[in-house]
């Protein structure tokens, strides 16, 4: 029973989050070396040089030669180095021990591995292989995600593995798969400078992917018009040409309404649609039901704006469309993403230097982490676990029988429902903090408490790991090497700056040690990340996400390699030195799926229009809960805050979540700026200070989600999921807001970051 071993405050007292120093370097501290690597946080993966002295990272130096960011960094990148040598860093393995004040006692690493293996073996013997589940994450290197997928299927023989990209990339991924047969942004970001129109749908670019702002605004300096679709005037919306103040959860209606106007006015590229796509007629028939009046009514966007967007987008000669979690975090997320793709396909503006489409990934390895097999329905190389040919190929790479590879598992949230029902009894989790990051997270906490055995691998004791029986001290990003694939589809190399401190180990070593202790070492005897990558190259060969032509040396030489990158020419089968594929779908391009039939990754080479149907959100605003609640990020924090809530200067920048509310609504409720206000949904209530601003729709409130416990926005969000992608509907639900009678009980008990 993985209940908290002792009072939560006692655990926090021992393991934090506490704050790092404000800064570490002084001019007296000359570094021994500068290590060229990348930031550990978001999906842009900015190049950065870490200053290293002894076995400590003591600062950073901008890496101005790296082509994506050319030295630019957001505040998280600037202060990321402070996570090293942190007082909360786990230096030993821990075992739950309620007799200790902190709830845990240090144990030897080997003992922790042995105990973990023994519990897994016992539970699997009693309840079968599928009683054990694995959770991974998209901040892990691609090598680790590959190893984790193999570990679940080959060592544990369980179908139950999934990852936190389920909360991030899956709506876009599913839509890309249905439309293009490949799941990647189409162009390098440098292509957008010089385009005519950029449409940003549901992305707070300036706060969530700050460096992308420079590309968009450089395009604007050279004449591009910018459309921003958001319920809030975010920094990138402040100066945009057309602001689309959409009501949360209505995006598919907006896209259908705009496409209808394009069709009515002849602003579609009929030649492109005829030659390169299928399915347009069904989409056109659906859009016919979305005239401007109905679209305006559904979306809360005035008719004049819908006309203006359609005309600007419809008449453009070159364009980019980007979206992110704002349209993807919905029970209608896949439909929303398909709606954007339909607009792009209808325009015919794809596969050219100044025209393209993409989703802005959230996590470090949001792209690579969704390609090589830690997803419940997937095998390496973006292969499908239900496809017999794909299974056969991967079985041959892994040296196992095809029949011994389990079938598809379930998504991360469903996995917690299975824990709740008692079907899954043991969990190994790495790089995932579901107690903060999953919706309706008090349910998640109750499920965690039912586990018979829970092992967490982490470098800090995150909020979920408080429930663990065994904690294995893993590695920070700068303590290991490997590859990740960033927002543009560029595979880059993370380089090791320092060794793991204390008893901590690189994550891939820990996973292999568990396999060995279980007596199932077959396939888990890699001696380095490079060795794992070499097997991954083979495993991905022939898949859509083909990495076979990528080497660590090529990444370094080219400063990144865009996949697919082939070891053998897909047309002739001859070995080639392939530089990679920076731009997808170019005229005349060859891909191994279409085999010359066309540009897109289907047998006929044609892209698919898909009817992108609008549906009302689940738990929509109602008489009882009349206000829309939407959630998101702030620039100084990252995801569940496991790292950033420990970095002092980042906490100081925006210490605690605030409730953003328009003065019109605030006045009606008697709430003034700085007042404590309670936001309540059908799941729970939290009390935060109000921030009264005109930059949000008056029918909507916003709360950032990086905090835990009584400050956690995900106590409020609804666990409704998209039927295809299973992404949770974080971006809208009905809530009610009232002025709080008094300060919440946590205000005097907890520090800002706790």
């Amino acid at each position, binding site marked *: 029973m993985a209940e908290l071993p002792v009072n939560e405050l006692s655990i926090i007292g021992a393991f934090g989050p506490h704050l790092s120093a404000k800064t570490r370097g002084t001019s007296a501290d000359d570094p021994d070396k500068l290590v060229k690597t990348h930031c550990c946080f978001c999906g842009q993966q900015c190049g950065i040089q870490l200053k290293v002295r002894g076995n400590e990272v003591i600062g950073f130096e901008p890496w101005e030669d790296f082509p994506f960011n050319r030295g630019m960094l957001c505040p998280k990148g600037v202060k990321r180095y402070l996570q090293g040598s942190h007082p909360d860093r786990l230096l030993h393995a821990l075992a739950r021990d309620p007799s200790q004040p902190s709830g845990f006692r240090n144990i030897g690493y080997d003992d922790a591995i042995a105990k973990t293996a023994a519990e897994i073996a016992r539970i699997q013997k009693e309840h079968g292989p599928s009683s054990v589940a694995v959770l991974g994450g998209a901040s892990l290197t691609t090598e680790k995600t590959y190893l984790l997928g193999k570990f679940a299927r080959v060592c544990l023989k369980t179908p139950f593995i999934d990852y936190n990209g389920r909360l991030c990339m899956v709506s876009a991924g599913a839509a890309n798969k249905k439309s293009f047969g490949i799941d990647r942004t189409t162009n390098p970001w440098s292509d957008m400078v010089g385009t005519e129109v950029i449409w940003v749908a549901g992305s707070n670019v300036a706060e969530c992917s700050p460096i992308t702002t420079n590309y968009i605004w450089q395009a604007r300096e050279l004449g591009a018009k910018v459309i921003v679709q958001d319920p809030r005037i975010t920094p990138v919306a402040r100066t945009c040409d057309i602001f689309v103040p959409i009501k949360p959860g209505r995006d598919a209606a907006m896209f259908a309404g705009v496409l209808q106007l394009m069709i009515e006015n002849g602003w579609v590229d009929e030649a492109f649609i005829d030659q390169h796509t299928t399915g347009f007629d069904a989409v056109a028939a659906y859009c016919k039901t979305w005239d401007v009046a109905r679209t305006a009514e559904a979306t809360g966007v005035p008719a004049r704006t819908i006309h203006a967007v359609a005309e600007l987008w419809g008449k453009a000669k070159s364009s980019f469309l980007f979206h992110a979690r704002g349209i993807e975090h919905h029970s209608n997320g896949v439909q929303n993403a398909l709606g954007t793709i339909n607009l792009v396909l209808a325009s015919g503006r794809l596969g050219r230097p100044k025209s393209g489409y993409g989703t802005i990934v959230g996590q470090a390895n949001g792209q690579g982490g969704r390609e090589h097999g830690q997803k419940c329905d997937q095998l390496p190389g973006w292969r499908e676990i239900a496809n017999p040919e794909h299974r056969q190929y991967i079985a041959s790479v892994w040296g196992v029988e095809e029949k011994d590879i389990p079938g598809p598992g379930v998504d991360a949230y469903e996995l917690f429902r299975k824990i709740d029902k008692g079907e899954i009894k043991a969990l190994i989790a790495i790089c995932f903090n579901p107690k903060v990051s999953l919706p309706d997270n008090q349910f998640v906490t109750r499920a965690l408490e039912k586990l018979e055995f829970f092992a967490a691998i982490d470098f800090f004791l995150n909020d979920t790991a408080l429930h663990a029986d065994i904690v294995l001290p893993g590695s920070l990003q700068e303590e290991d090497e490997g590859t990740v694939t960033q927002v543009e589809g560029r595979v880059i190399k993370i380089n090791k700056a320092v060794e793991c401190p204390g008893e901590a180990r690189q994550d891939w070593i820990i996973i292999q040690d568990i396999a060995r202790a279980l007596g199932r070492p077959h396939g888990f005897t890699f001696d380095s990340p490079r060795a794992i990558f070499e097997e991954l190259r083979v495993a991905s060969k022939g898949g859509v996400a083909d990495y076979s032509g990528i080497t660590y040396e090529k990444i370094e030489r080219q400063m990144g390699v865009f996949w697919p990158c082939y070891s053998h020419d897909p047309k002739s089968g001859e070995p080639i030195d392939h530089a990679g594929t920076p731009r997808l779908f170019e005229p005349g391009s060859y891909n191994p799926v279409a085999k010359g039939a066309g540009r897109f990754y289907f047998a006929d080479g044609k892209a698919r229009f898909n009817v992108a149907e609008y549906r009302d959100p689940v738990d929509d605003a109602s008489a009882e809960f009349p206000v829309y609640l939407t959630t998101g990020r702030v620039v100084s924090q990252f995801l569940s805050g496991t790292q950033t809530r420990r970095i002092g200067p980042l906490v100081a920048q925006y210490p605690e979540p605030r409730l953003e509310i328009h003065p019109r609504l605030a006045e009606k409720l008697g709430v003034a700026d700085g007042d404590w206000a309670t936001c309540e949904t059908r799941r729970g209530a939290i009390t935060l200070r109000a921030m009264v601003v005109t930059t*949000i729709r008056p029918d909507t409130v916003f709360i950032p989600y990086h905090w835990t416990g009584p400050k956690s926005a995900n106590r409020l969000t609804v666990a409704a999921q998209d039927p295809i992608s299973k992404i949770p509907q974080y971006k809208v639900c009905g809530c009610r807001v009232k002025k709080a009678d008094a300060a919440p009980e946590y205000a005097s008990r907890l520090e800002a970051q706790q």
Partner: protein
Amino acid sequence: MTVPSHLHFFIDPSRCIGCQSCVQACSECDTHKGESMIHLEFIDRARSVQTVPVVCMHCEQPTCAEVCPADAIKRTGDGVVQSARKPRCIACGNCVMACPFGVPEVYPDRLLMMKCDMCYDRSSAGKRPMCATVCPSQALFFGTHEEIAALRPQSRPTNVFRFGEQTITTRTFVMVPRGQAPAPLLDVTAAMGDEPQRRTVRLPIHGAVPDAADPFAEVEV
């Protein structure tokens, strides 16, 4: 080592996203002793997300130095106004009061005025200042007039400012729109209405366009 005369700071508030990367990076510059010398403020957060970063303007005739009773503030030959010299500074705060841009700060814990010195250790050694290197939207840019002209055709640099009777010329430039610029979006409800409410703003640029009666005269489109 000096800062080459053709390299300048260019501040472009229209590009600021308020992320505080400059503030965080400033405190990592070796000579800043863990403190940030940058001021980054919301203009009026209740009504806008607009923020403005302020680095030292490096005046040709620095008011801070002129009012310093201890002669502790020096402008080096390359036009960079340095932090107060520790042996001389008496932490009186005259410079703090006098600077028209609000740049210097007195640090009571070390009885010293410190301010933006253009990361002199970096900029005098062929590197860009820390803030302008990391700024994700390049609201703080460090480079040549030719580079900024190519990158920002819709705005132009100015370095002459008037405060009452005082006219100040600076080494740091501020980017201002050429001609009329669309006013930024302030209230979501304006975008929700059936009638458009966009307006344009013309900023008077000293010595370039005739002074308007109202410095923020708004012209309906």
